[in-house]
């Protein structure tokens, strides 16, 4: 029998209050499998502020510090430094959604990265403000319907591409940043374990599909997540001290249309809109390949 590379220990108990098929729930479960029990997590306003359960119940086997929406970076700065004062070696983790990271929490995140606190910032990205009911965020992709980019006679779906938070983070020259996808748990756990061993600020960008907000059946979460990487909508890579490595090489990428057609939020798109997205994906993939190619030269330093 082949042994699984996924740790069997569970630090997320049954009985959470996430929606059926929640990608964010899997993100937390795999994250904790990779980190283990010696972990403190800070969670701002986001779906995960509700998922652990109503007081006094909780579904996690690690301590949680709930914080305000925009302060995850500052909160883990405080915990990390307090742990140093106390002489405790603990995984200090911020676990925030896309709105809390790329929009309202960007300043605190930037401060935490620049000051180089010893903590892991995790972004679980479901590409909109899902806890408040599917409003567009800076991480919502072009073409997506949300409740604040509704589709009526004037087809108001989101007209701007997704904010590239990875590049913003990498620009802080931190030791480790990576993209993770719940559909690739081995790659996921490997990156979490790597981040855990590195001192200084780390950033993990987890792709976490949301059946409720993306309008697809809950049993399709893994399929949708896998397609995101197979179509290069969400490539898997890591950046170590500025050196890019693509961890999931996709030899023959599928057309983005295959990904887009799985979700109701994209149902209004014309062929022309699909082409705009395909062009954006192609361009970004090309850039990523170049970054990988040229950043390798840094290894010769």
């Amino acid at each position, binding site marked *: 029998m082949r042994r699984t590379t996924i740790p069997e220990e569970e630090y997320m108990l049954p009985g959470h209050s996430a929606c059926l098929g929640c990608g964010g729930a899997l993100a937390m479960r795999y994250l904790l499998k990779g980190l283990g029990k010696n972990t*403190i997590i800070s969670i701002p306003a986001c779906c995960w502020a509700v998922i652990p359960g109503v007081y006094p119940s909780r579904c996690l086997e690690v301590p949680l510090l709930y914080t305000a929406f925009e302060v995850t970076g500052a909160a883990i700065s405080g915990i990390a430094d307090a742990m140093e004062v106390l002489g405790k070696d603990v995984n200090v983790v911020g676990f925030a959604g896309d709105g809390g990271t790329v929009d309202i929490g960007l300043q605190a995140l930037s401060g935490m990265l620049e*000051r180089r606190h010893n903590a892991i910032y995790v972004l679980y990205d479901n590409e909109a403000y899902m806890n408040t009911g599917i409003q567009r965020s800076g991480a919502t992709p072009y073409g997506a319907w949300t409740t604040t980019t509704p589709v009526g006679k004037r087809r108001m779906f989101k007209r701007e591409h997704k904010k590239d938070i990875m590049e913003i983070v990498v620009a802080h020259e931190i030791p480790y940043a990576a993209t993770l996808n719940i559909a690739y748990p081995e790659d996921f756990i490997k990156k979490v374990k790597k981040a855990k061993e590195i001192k200084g600020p780390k950033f993990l960008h987890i792709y976490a599909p949301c059946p409720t907000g993306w309008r697809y059946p809950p049993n399709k979460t893994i399929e949708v997540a896998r397609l995101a990487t197979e179509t290069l909508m969400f490539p898997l890579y890591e950046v170590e001290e500025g050196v890019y490595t693509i961890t999931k090489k996709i030899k023959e990428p599928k057309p983005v249309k295959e990904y887009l057609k799985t979700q109701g939020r994209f149902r209004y798109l014309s062929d022309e809109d699909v082409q705009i997205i395909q062009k954006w994906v192609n361009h970004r993939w090309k850039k990523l390949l170049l970054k990988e190619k040229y950043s390798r030269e840094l290894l010769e330093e």
Partner: protein
Amino acid sequence: MMLLTGNETAAYAAKVCRAKVVAAYPITPQTTVVEKIAELIANGEMDAKYIRVESEHSAMAACIAAENSGVRTFTATSAHGLTLMHELLIWASGARLPIVMSVINRAMAPPWSVWTDQQDSMAQRDTGWMQVYAESNQEVMDSIIMAYKVGEREDILLPTMVMEDAFILSHTSEPVDVPTEEEVASYLPDLKLPYKLDPDFPAGFGSLIMPEGPYMEFRYKIAEAMDKARKVIREECEEFEKKFGRHYDGLVEFYRTDDADVNLIMLGTMASTAKEVVDELRSEGKKVGLLRIRYFRPFPYEEIREVAMNSSYIGVCDRSYTFGYGGPIWSEVRSAAYPAKVFVKNYVVGLGGRDITPKVLRKIYEDALTMKEDKEIEWVGLLWDERWR
């Protein structure tokens, strides 16, 4: 004894109280607090982690997280920095974290003004923080030490902000008795929170609560602790005097109030000037007194009621204003004074750092001595008003 500005005093207070995490962001006129702390750490005189955050909002967030980890924290701010923190001030008291913060009272823009005014901290009245207003640099030192002592008690667990008037205290040197860390340690033991972030204690701090409860019960517990703090502060003033030899009346300071017909009520540094005026008027045979509020939260309603019961007329000087109806101290004093049948007049004075001179305060006392009851709220010294010149 050291010659220190109010801001240097606050920095030394953080040091002798053994704050272990300081998270702060510079703002005029608070800057010399964070500069002094940086210097003390750089010189190896203070042993603390210093998080040079990217905003005051993050300063309070980092203090909350560090304090929740079981480490004593300190921060300092002013005006816009304090109001930017507002969301997290409520968070700190809701999470029952005895953080101590030095606040340098400064006017809010627009128009820009860096001078003293108390709108910034008065606007934080409802955040669940204890508020103490200092009259001298020594009181800044002593209030910070006592703030940790009172706030960290298991039956209190509330944060405290200690106010100084901008420039009048923050940048003015006075002789200050700075106790040693050892002396303070024998009065203020290490922080021991009953619950803190610890992988061996996997609790959720601040999780969702439905309307059925116990959200309301948690809020009641804060109210109960704040009410209890009144008694604790009075007792702690006695303990403090035994240890350090300096006397504080408690939540307020009574200055010749006993047999006074007219008492003024105020807080902060204007009280120093007012005391001179009281002495002057007393020497002229006028029965006037002064009640200086030290703690605005918890509010000393008993002391105020007692003075109100024994006064013929009360004037309240506010260095801020609640647009719509009167100064904040005035409305609270009136409410506390009830059922005393005494007229309580509001004098709005010194906004944006306008100097409150002995002459101005004398005019206020003289106005109060007429005991007229025709006008509730008086703005003192407006440029076009000849009466106060």
